[in-house]
C-alpha cells in the first residue's frame, strides 16, 4: 500500500550492519558498483564508530528507479552481520523490515516474532566453497537477486572486481555470488516482498563519486597543485584522494607535522605561485586560526576544505555535525574578509571547490569549503562533472621593477605578483605594512590598509552564489537549510507533499546572499534546519539579513538528519 508506493517512488533501502573489519565495505562496494553499472540509481551512506575493529557500523544503500541522494530511516532489507547489529538499529526496524542473515551469528536478537527474519546460510555456502570469507559475496549475490538484477551481469561484475586475484579466488567468488543469487527467490517468497526497480537509461553515463571525491576532483579542476594537511577524520579522504592521484597530475601532496605547519605551508605555496589547499576538520582547523589571520594580513589566497564533525574537542570523530560555521566565520584575530561555501550535492562540491580556487586567487582571501562527515562519506550517481565548465582563472601578474604588492586600489584588490615572475620584488609582511610590504607604524596608513582589506568583501559580495529555491518560487512556508542537508530536506518536502512549502538552500553561506531578507520575508512561516544545537546559520541570517527565524529544527546527536524526521518535524510546525 503506502509503503509499496513509497518504495516504487523512492526505491528500496538496504542496510548492512556489522563490526568494523567484517566486510560491510566489500558488500557495499560490489553491490553499489554492479547496480550503478547496470543502470540503477544508487545512494550509499555510512555511520561508523571511531575504532578500527569491532563496534557496530552500518551502511545504508538505496536503490531506486529515480535518482536518490538522501539518508532515510526506513530499512526495507536489513543484513545484520553480528550480534548487536539488530539492537543497534532497533529504532529503524519496522514490522515490514525484511531481515536476512544467520540466526547462529545473531543470537537471540532475531528470536522476537515481531521481526520478519529469513534465514540465509551465507556462511555455510561459503564454507562449502572452502572459506568463510566468501560469505560476504554470497550475501551480495542474494541482494542482487532480490533487486532483480540479471545473474550474468552479477557474475560478470564479480569476475572483474576480483580480476587481480588468483584464478581460484575469482571462480569461487563467482560461485559464491551465484549461490547467493539463487537464495533470493526463497527470501522473496518467505518474506513476501517483490521489488520492481527499473534501470534508468541515463545512469550508465553518470559517475558515482563520494563527497570527498567530488571535493578533491573539484580542487584538481580548480587548478590545485599543492595540498598540505594533517590527517583528521572526516577530512582524510580528500587528502588521500589527492595523494593517490596527485603525483601524476603534478600536484604536491604533503602530510605536515601538524595543522599549523599545513596552513603556513599552503600560504607559502600561494605566495610562490602555487594554488594550495589544506584539508582538515574542526579540531585541526582550530589550530589554523592564527594562519587564517596571516592569510588575512598577507592578503594571501588559501583554500580550506573543512569537514565538520561533532565537537567540542575530540567529540565524536567519525560522526557528523554542522557546528563550525561560526568558527570558520570568525577564525583569526583582527578583521578581514573571507568566503564560505557549503555544498549540498556532489555537483556543488565539485563546482564550488573549483570556484574556491578562482575566488581565493581573485580576492586574495581565505575561501572555505565547509563539508561534513555525512557529505564526505556519502555517494550516489550523478552527471559526470563537466571539466570544460570550469576555467582555471589565474590572477597573478608579471611584476615590473617598481612593483608594489599592497598598492591601494578602489576595490581593495592589489595586483598579486609572485617571486620569480617578472622583474619586481614581492614582499609580504604579517605586520601592518605599507604598499611595498614593509613594516609601518604610520597609523593613518594603518587605517587605510584596514579599509582596503575590508573593501574586498564588497567585491566578493558581487559574486555571491544564489541560494536554490525548490520547488516553487511561490510559497507560504519556507524551509531554509545549508550545506549537506539539502537532499534530505528536499526529499522531506516531497514526502510532506505540501504545495505551499518551498526549500531555500544556501551553498554559499558567507557573504550572505543580499536577497536573503526578501526570500524570507515573502514567507508566512520560515523554518530552519541545521545540524547543530544553537542554530548558527540562523544567527548569521539574523545578523546579516536582519531576519529572525522563529522555527528551528536542530539535531546534534552525531547522526545526519533523516528524511522522515525532517518531514515529521516540519509537519508539526506547519500543521
Amino acid at each position, binding site marked *: 500500500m503506502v509503503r509499496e508506493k513509497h518504495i516504487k517512488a523512492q526505491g528500496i533501502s538496504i542496510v548492512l550492519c556489522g563490526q568494523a573489519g567484517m566486510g560491510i565495505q566489500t558488500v557495499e562496494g560490489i553491490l553499489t558498483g554492479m547496480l550503478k553499472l547496470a543502470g540503477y540509481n544508487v545512494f550509499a551512506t555510512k555511520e561508523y564508530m571511531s575504532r578500527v575493529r569491532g563496534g557496530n557500523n552500518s551502511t545504508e544503500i538505496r536503490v531506486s528507479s529515480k535518482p536518490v541522494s538522501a539518508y532515510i530511516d526506513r530499512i526495507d532489507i536489513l543484513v545484520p552481520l553480528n550480534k548487536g547489529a539488530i539492537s543497534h538499529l532497533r529504532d529503524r526496524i519496522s514490522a515490514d523490515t525484511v531481515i536476512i542473515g544467520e540466526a547462529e551469528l545473531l543470537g537471540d536478537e532475531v528470536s522476537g516474532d515481531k521481526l520478519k527474519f529469513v534465514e540465509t546460510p551465507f556462511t555455510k555456502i561459503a564454507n562449502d566453497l572452502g572459506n568463510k570469507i566468501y560469505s560476504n559475496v554470497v550475501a551480495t549475490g542474494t541482494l542482487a537477486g532480490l533487486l532483480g538484477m540479471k545473474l550474468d551481469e552479477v557474475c560478470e561484475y564479480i569476475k572483474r572486481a576480483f580480476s587481480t586475484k588468483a584464478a581460484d579466488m575469482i571462480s569461487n567468488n563467482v560461485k559464491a555470488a551465484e549461490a547467493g543469487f539463487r537464495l533470493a527467490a526463497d527470501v522473496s517468497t518467505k518474506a513476501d516482498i517483490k521489488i520492481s526497480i527499473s534501470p534508468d537509461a541515463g545512469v550508465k553515463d553518470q559517475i558515482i563519486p563520494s563527497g570527498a571525491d567530488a571535493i578533491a576532483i573539484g580542487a584538481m*579542476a580548480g*587548478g590545485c597543485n599543492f595540498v598540505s594537511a594533517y590527517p583528521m577524520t572526516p577530512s582524510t579522504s580528500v587528502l588521500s584522494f589527492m595523494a593517490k592521484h596527485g603525483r601524476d597530475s603534478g600536484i604536491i601532496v604533503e602530510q605536515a607535522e601538524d595543522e599549523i605547519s599545513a596552513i603556513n605551508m*599552503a600560504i*607559502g*605555496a600561494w605566495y610562490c*605561485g*602555487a594554488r594550495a589547499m589544506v584539508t582538515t576538520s574542526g579540531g585541526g582547523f582550530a589550530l589554523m586560526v592564527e594562519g587564517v589571520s596571516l592569510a588575512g594580513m598577507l592578503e594571501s589566497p588559501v583554500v580550506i576544505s573543512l569537514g565538520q564533525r561533532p565537537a567540542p574537542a575530540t567529540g565524536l570523530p567519525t560522526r557528523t555535525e554542522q557546528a563550525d560555521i561560526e568558527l570558520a566565520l570568525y577564525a583569526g584575530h583582527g578583521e578581514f574578509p573571507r568566503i564560505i561555501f557549503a555544498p549540498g550535492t556532489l555537483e556543488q562540491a565539485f563546482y564550488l571547490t573549483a570556484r574556491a580556487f578562482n575566488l581565493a586567487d581573485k580576492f586574495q582571501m581565505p575561501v572555505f569549503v565547509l563539508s561534513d562527515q555525512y557529505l564526505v562519506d556519502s555517494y550516489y550517481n550523478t552527471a559526470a562533472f563537466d571539466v570544460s565548465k570550469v576555467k582555471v582563472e589565474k590572477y597573478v601578474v608579471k611584476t615590473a621593477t617598481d612593483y608594489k604588492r599592497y598598492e591601494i586600489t578602489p576595490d581593495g584588490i592589489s595586483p598579486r605578483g609572485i617571486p*620569480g615572475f617578472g622583474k619586481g620584488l614581492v614582499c609580504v609582511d604579517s605586520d601592518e605594512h605599507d604598499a611595498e610590504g614593509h*613594516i609601518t607604524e604610520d597609523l593613518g596608513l594603518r587605517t587605510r590598509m584596514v579599509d582596503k582589506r575590508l573593501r574586498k568583501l564588497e567585491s566578493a559580495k558581487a559574486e555571491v552564489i544564489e541560494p536554490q529555491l525548490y520547488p516553487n518560487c511561490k510559497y507560504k512556508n519556507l524551509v531554509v537549510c545549508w550545506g549537506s542537508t539539502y537532499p534530505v530536506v528536499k526529499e522531506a518536502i516531497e514526502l510532506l507533499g505540501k504545495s505551499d512549502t518551498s526549500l531555500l538552500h544556501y551553498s554559499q553561506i558567507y557573504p550572505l546572499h543580499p536577497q536573503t531578507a526578501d526570500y524570507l520575508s515573502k514567507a508566512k512561516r520560515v523554518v530552519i534546519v541545521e545540524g547543530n544545537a544553537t542554530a548558527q546559520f540562523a544567527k548569521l541570517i539574523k545578523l546579516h539579513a536582519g531576519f529572525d527565524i522563529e522555527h528551528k529544527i536542530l539535531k546534534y546527536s552525531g547522526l545526519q538528519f533523516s528524511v522522515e524526521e525532517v518531514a515529521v518535524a516540519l509537519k508539526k510546525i506547519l500543521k
Partner: protein
Amino acid sequence: MDTNVFDMGEIDIAWCPGCGDYGILNVLKKALAELDIAPEKLVMVSGIGQAAKIPHYLKTNFFNGLHGRALPPATAIKAANPSMTVIAESGDGDMYGEGGNHFIHTIRRNPGITNIVHNNMVYGLTKGQASPTSQLGFKTPVQVAGVTLEPFNPLAVAIALDAGFVARAFIGDADKTKEILKKAITHKGYALVDIFQPCVTFNKVNTWQWFKEHTYYLEDSYDPHDRSAAFKRALETEKLPLGIFYINPNKSAFEDNVGIYQQDNRPLFEREPDVNRLRMLIRKIRAAG
C-alpha cells in the same frame, strides 16, 4: 655581483646600536653577492622577533610571516619553485621555541633551504625573557629566579635528526661566518647555521666579550662526516666550538622527493591542470567493475 644590489638605501633600522644583528645582515649580503644570487631569485622567509626583521633590510623578495612559522612557508616556497634560493631566518625563540616542531620536522623533510638562526640566548623583541637557548641561571623579568630549563642545544638536536648540514658561527668573526654561510647556501637540502649574536640590550651575560671568550673553531683536521663525533663536539660547553659540525651529503632534498619535477621542471605557477587526465580520472571513480 656587487653587494650593493641588496642595499635598501636610507632606511630606518629598528635594531639597537651595537647589536649583533647588523653584522649578520652585512655578512649575509656579502655571501649572497659572492655567490651571485640575484635579489629576484632569492626569497627571505622569517618569523617575528628582532632577528626576523632582517628581510626588511635587504632588497629581495620576502615572506615575513608569523612568529615561529618561517620553516613551513619556506619549505613550500622551495617546493613550488625549486629554482629560487630560499633562506629562512629568525631568532632563537622563533625557531627553537614557538617553531620547535617545524624545526624538527623540517630537518626530517630536508627541503633545500638555508636556516639561519640569530642565537642571542634571549627574546629581544619582547624585552628580555628567556629563550630556549638561555643559559641556566639567566635572570629575566619572567625567569626571576633564573632559568632552570636545560638550554636547548640546536646542533645536538639537528645532528640527532641527521640534518644534512649543521654549523655554528659567531658574528664577532664576520669573515668566517660568511664562509660558513656560503657553504650552507650552496648545500643541497636543509642547512642549519646557528649564529651567536650578542643582544646588547637584554642579555648582559652573553656579551660580545663572553662569546669571544667562550668560543673557538673546530680544528682544520676535524671531519664533519662522522655523526657521533659531531654530536660529541656539539655537547662541549666549557668552550663552544664554531664551524661546520656535520655534513651528510647523501640525502635527497624534499623538492626532489615530491616526485613532480622529474619529468617536468616547470615551477607550479607555470602549470595548468591536465584536462584530459582529469576527465579520465572522473570516469574512473568507483568504477572498479
